[in-house]
């Protein structure tokens, strides 16, 4: 099972410097690369250069230049509003996307200049589509070394830096109601892209969870895996392993298995523990962020503040607030630090936070008034950092557990978790364990 970490922002650099070597690869979003080219390529050179040789790839984010599907109304918006931000002059396309548009090639740049998204009908045009494929693949293969060569400090890395391990064909959201047309266009995109990359071409399939329950459409998706690509990244919109029902999870599992039976690698762009388990059923790997990113909607919800980084509770494979975990101590007979480390977590972070006194566990939820004008307390950066490092260590432990266990052992492990999930303060929000067991037992 390959675990990729998604590099979200440079505030996460410390986590990657300390932990990336334990993971299988790193994903950089192209809009981050364009907004901070020197900083990003210097990291790529450090992580993936001769010393560490960690796999990386650049996510071209081509879907951002596509149409926005409004779930409330079913309308399709083509004004690229979702990549705009408010400026003194009104709303304009974010500078990172303006730069990305220029770097990705003419068709993307034109979309930015005209503030008009790339549409399904655009992609049906062979010349247009070929240009999109050629330029976005060229971008992924050459952009990083191109930036390195211009930087006096890092130019010498350019020749020795390996190419990205994954090249993605341009990808767009397969809109509900137009799935067949989008799948056809995706097939054409793959065919065109293979002219520019035929050794490590992957396709990213972004679709709504409703597609998982449509047998015909699923067959068409699976047919795509018979093309001459190396693998498929799956990104399901509005899909959360924690809350998806048995039908959705079963269907997702079947899709993974079917693609892998066609001899192709298959990855989940946003996954958690359930996806780790699916490595036993064909999933090659998955990615997520540092303490977040186990689910993500393709059509974004705009706005919102910085969420609290809750404690990842290994017993239930989910994040909870500190009070939720502490509330369980009595029922789980966790009376002191030693028992906590034995039953819950003995990672270096938990050992360092608790320091022999269970009362210190609350440091994971430490809060403060962030600014002078703040009225509401938020999590301290130090607490968020502890939680994120713990999350990464817990994830690595889970990976080992899955690698070392057969499915029946994993199910036994989940049944022990299920007992905990039925405690009253967990039961209303922790039905995922029972659902996972049903899906896995149905294998």
């Amino acid at each position, binding site marked *: 099972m390959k675990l990729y970490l998604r590099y979200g922002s440079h505030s996460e650099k410390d986590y990657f410097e300390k932990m990336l070597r334990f993971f299988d690869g790193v994903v950089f979003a192209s809009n981050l690369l364009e907004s901070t080219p020197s900083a990003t390529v210097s990291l790529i050179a450090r992580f993936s250069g001769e010393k560490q040789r960690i796999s990386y790839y650049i996510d071209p984010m081509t879907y951002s230049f596509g149409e926005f599907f409004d779930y409330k109304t079913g309308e399709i918006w083509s004004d690229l509003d979702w990549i705009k931000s408010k400026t003194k002059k009104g709303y304009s396309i974010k500078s990172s996307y303006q730069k990305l548009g220029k770097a990705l090639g003419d068709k993307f740049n034109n979309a930015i200049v005209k503030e008009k998204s790339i549409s399904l009908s655009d992609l049906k045009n062979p010349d247009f589509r070929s240009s999109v494929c050629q330029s976005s693949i060229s971008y992924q293969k050459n952009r990083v070394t191109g930036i390195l060569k211009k930087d006096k400090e890092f130019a010498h890395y350019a020749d020795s830096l390996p190419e990205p391990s994954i090249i993605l064909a341009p990808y767009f959201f397969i809109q509900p109601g137009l799935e067949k047309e989008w799948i056809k266009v995706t097939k054409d995109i793959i065919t065109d892209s293979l002219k520019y990359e035929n050794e490590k071409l992957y396709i990213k399939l972004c679709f709504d969870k409703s597609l998982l329950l449509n047998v015909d459409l699923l067959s068409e998706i699976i047919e795509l895996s018979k093309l001459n690509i190396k693998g498929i990244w799956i990104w399901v919109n509005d899909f959360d392993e924690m809350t998806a029902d048995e039908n959705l999870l079963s269907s997702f599992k079947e899709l993974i298995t079917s693609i892998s039976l066609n001899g192709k690698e298959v990855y989940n762009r946003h996954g958690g523990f359930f996806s780790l388990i699916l490595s036993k059923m064909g999933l090659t790997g998955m990615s997520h962020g540092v303490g977040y990113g186990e689910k993500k909607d393709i059509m974004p919800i705009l706005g919102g503040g910085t969420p609290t980084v809750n404690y990842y509770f290994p017993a239930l494979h989910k994040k909870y607030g500190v*009070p939720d975990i*502490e509330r369980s101590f009595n029922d789980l007979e966790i009376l002191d630090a030693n028992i906590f480390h034995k039953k819950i977590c003995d990672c270096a972070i938990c050992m360092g936070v608790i320091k022999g006194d269970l009362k210190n566990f609350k440091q994971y939820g430490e809060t403060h008034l962030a600014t002078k004008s703040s009225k509401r307390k938020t999590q301290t950066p130090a607490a968020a950092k502890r939680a994120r490092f713990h999350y990464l260590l817990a994830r690595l432990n889970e990976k080992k557990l899955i690698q070392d266990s057969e499915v029946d052992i994993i199910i036994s492990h989940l049944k022990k978790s299920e007992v905990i999930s039925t405690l*009253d303060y967990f039961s209303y929000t922790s039905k995922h364990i029972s659902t996972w067991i049903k899906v896995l037992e149905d294998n």
Partner: protein
Amino acid sequence: MEYRWEVDLYIPLKKYLKNKSFRFLEEEVGFFERRIDVYGFSKIRNETIAVEAKLRNWKKALQQALLYQLCSDFSYVAMPVEVFSLIDLSVFERNGVGFIGVYPSGRCRELIKAKPSSVLKSYYRDELIPLSREKGR
């Protein structure tokens, strides 16, 4: 009176709690990322009380109240009285969470008596008492 918002429950609730000797009361008290709707302290009894007010979702209210047992001697859910017939009594009783029914008239009645919290952490209680004493007169 029909209660349209949760905050509409606060006035009758606080009046009721004051009559029960919880003279120091504070609304929306922060407890980690959550906010306890009403937190009170009784100097006479040296007891604290946390109340989660909700209009309909008793399960969510109960879940919050269970967490507030960490920081309060007694933990209650307060809801319009008609919701009482919908709740799972056994869960409340099993965990020692109380239920206060709020009538349209503004009258409140304890329909399930809370038990003293068996998971109380004194360090949380000690942090919250001053808040209710400072602001909640």
